[in-house]
């Protein structure tokens, strides 16, 4: 499936910026389930500094906010050809050892709630079924409610609150999977929705390493494993490691964030919309 994406993030500052940096993890890389056909980022109110690969193999761009700017706009756009691999990526690439993904982070530490969730999990014949069960259980316990949580919310807090967004779903799933002994990672990416091309945030899900199978994806928010409608951008131990934009700003004042995201499928002429692969 060919997906066309345009993702723009605008930060507005109440007082002019003195100094600041932002790391952008907004460049998908070609891999087993996707090839990037074209991609570009455009920045306003900041200057490009570097492009490098981080420890998880993510392409990272560092930008420096322009002194005196009151707004920065980061726009990523491009086309990605995806393939439905049933949510399974069989090989592990890069030097990050698999055991690293068993490390818990402040956002994914298992508290009482997550330990209970794991204990109450229905038994299953195989690991994939067990983890789908986990995904379903989290989906039931944590309602999809935007605005109830933020980027600092921990897995345990989201579970106790019973509300969150895809990021919280992924965190709870990762925390539980690690508690069960599975290496797990956070994936940030895009998703083609059926309802509308316009979205107000990018997507996130989780992957678990299963010996003999590979990295298996679980999208708790949608209760499925990723398919051809998903584009992977970055992975990491949690949101902090894989966030699309992570920054640091010196100077006083508040900042406001506005995201515009459009994901649509590009159909070759003559193709019918139903004919998805």
């Amino acid at each position, binding site marked *: 499936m060919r997906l066309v994406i345009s993702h723009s993030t605008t930060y507005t500052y109440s007082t002019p910026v003195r*100094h600041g*940096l932002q*790391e952008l993890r907004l460049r998908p890389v070609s891999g087993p389930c996707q090839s990037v056909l074209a991609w570009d980022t455009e920045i306003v109110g900041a200057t490009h*500094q*570097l*492009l*490098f*690969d*981080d*420890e*998880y*193999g993510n392409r*990272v761009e*560092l930008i*420096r906010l322009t002194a005196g700017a009151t707004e920065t706009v980061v726009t990523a756009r491009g086309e990605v050809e995806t393939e439905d691999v049933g949510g399974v990526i069989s090989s592990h690439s*890069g*030097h*990050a*050892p698999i*055991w*690293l993904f*068993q*490390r818990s982070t402040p956002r994914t530490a298992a508290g009482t709630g997550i330990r209970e969730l794991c204990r109450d999990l229905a038994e299953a014949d195989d690991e994939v079924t067990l983890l789908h069960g986990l995904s379903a259980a989290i989906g039931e316990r944590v309602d999809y409610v935007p605005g109830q949580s933020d980027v600092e919310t921990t897995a345990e807090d989201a579970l106790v609150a019973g509300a969150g967004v895809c990021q919280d779903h992924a965190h709870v799933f990762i925390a539980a999977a690690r508690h069960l002994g599975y290496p797990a990672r956070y994936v940030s990416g895009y998703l083609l929705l059926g309802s509308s091309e316009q979205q107000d945030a990018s997507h996130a899900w989780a992957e678990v390493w299963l010996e003999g199978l590979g990295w298996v994806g679980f999208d708790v928010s949608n209760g499925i494993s990723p398919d051809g409608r998903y584009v992977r951008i970055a992975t990491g*131990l949690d949101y902090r490691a894989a966030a699309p934009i*992570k*920054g*640091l700003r010196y100077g006083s004042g508040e900042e406001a964030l506005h995201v515009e995201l459009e994901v649509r499928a590009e159909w070759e002429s003559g193709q019918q919309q139903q004919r998805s692969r």
Partner: protein
Amino acid sequence: MDVRPGHFDEMHGSGTTVRAPYVDYQDWFADEDPRRLLKKSADAEALFRRTGITFNVYGGAEADERLIPFDIVPRILAASEWAVLERGMEQRVRAINAFLHDIYHRQEILRAGRIPTSVISDNEAFLPQMIGMTPPGGVYTHIVGTDIVRTGENEFYVLEDNARTPSGVSYMLENRETMLQMFPELFTKSRVRPVSEYPTDLRTSLGACAPAASGNRPTIAVLTPGIHNSAYFEHAFLADQMSVELVEGHDLSVEDGRIVMRTTRGSEPIDVLYRRVDDDFLDPLIFRSDSQLGIAGVMDVYRAGGITIANAPGTGIADDKAIYSYVPDIIDFYTGEKPLLNNVPTWRCAEPDSLAYVLDHLAELVVKEVHGSGGYGMLVGPAASKREMASFTKKLKANPSKYIAQPTLALSTVPILTRAGLAPRHVDLRPFALVSPDRIRITPGGLTRVALKRNSLVVNSSQGGGTKDTWVMET
């Protein structure tokens, strides 16, 4: 002088005869008036105070600067003794660099089962941000200070490989400077190998590790946490001796993909940053976000190949006490050689058998915290009270993997000058190795730390230790 029974004295051996490396010194000393020497000793202290060779005490008032006591009797090593140490250190340093490259890439040593994965995976000193990162020139530990002790004529043990940011080299240099000023006649009589090349060597060695894109004369800077840091004197001293800028985090920023310093003419890029700031504080964007001491973005510039950081972040995984006991395996794995310098036998309390042994033999052992430093948080069995032992037993049982234990070594002594004449005191030795892509340079000598209290084994300056000039003889 009476030697301490059961301990090797480096001047007198185990008896009254003077050992060969000290014969010339003894001849000179015999003709000296001890009162003149004590006066000289006081002069040296006044000199240090006046020149501001001080260290700040952690937790003390801002103005609490102390001198590290200096003893005027040199610690002397024969050329043949030094040769052993030099070769042994070089081997260790080489192996440690190979280990660091491996551990942040394919981790062959774990795959081969030579080190249990848990030793690395449970270790805070393993820095994920270094995964897949090869520093310019392939060098991780640009400067290593290896702590060595001696127990007999031919017995040396490595206590610790300081592979993060070893300090103390300024004392090696200043102590020699002081000796040359006070006793020039000694150096005409004895042929002592100079240490004064160190700053030039450091500069050359760091320059050789600059990113490939830097020019012929790479710009080097020393990064200090500032004047309140305990080792500030050393930071300023080294910058001065190398003729490079001494910078603080707020002098630096990211510009055009480089780390630049703010100068009176504008921004100037830096190629090599010899940092004396800990990993945690190095980059608020990546590590502790509350750090005022680092530079936001420096790790990104580093990963992109735009700067050399010396030593590389994450080198702590090589000198961690939990790794220490595996260094002989590390040497064997990467060099195929037998270790030239001994490791102190070490019980890893994480292993149940070892723990049982340690608990049974607490009174004979030194127990150390795996992540502690500076001689804090350790139990010296033979010197401990019943109560201290009981409290440590509890700690060990509660958290065995936090501890290792080693036998108490019969550390050698070297005489110091006291009001009552020469008296034996325990010493250790920290020589410094400089690593560049093409060679390893080890300055002949090092920092000799000496426990000033009688029979004390604690040489740390933070706990009342002093220093001596260290002589390596030409022949």
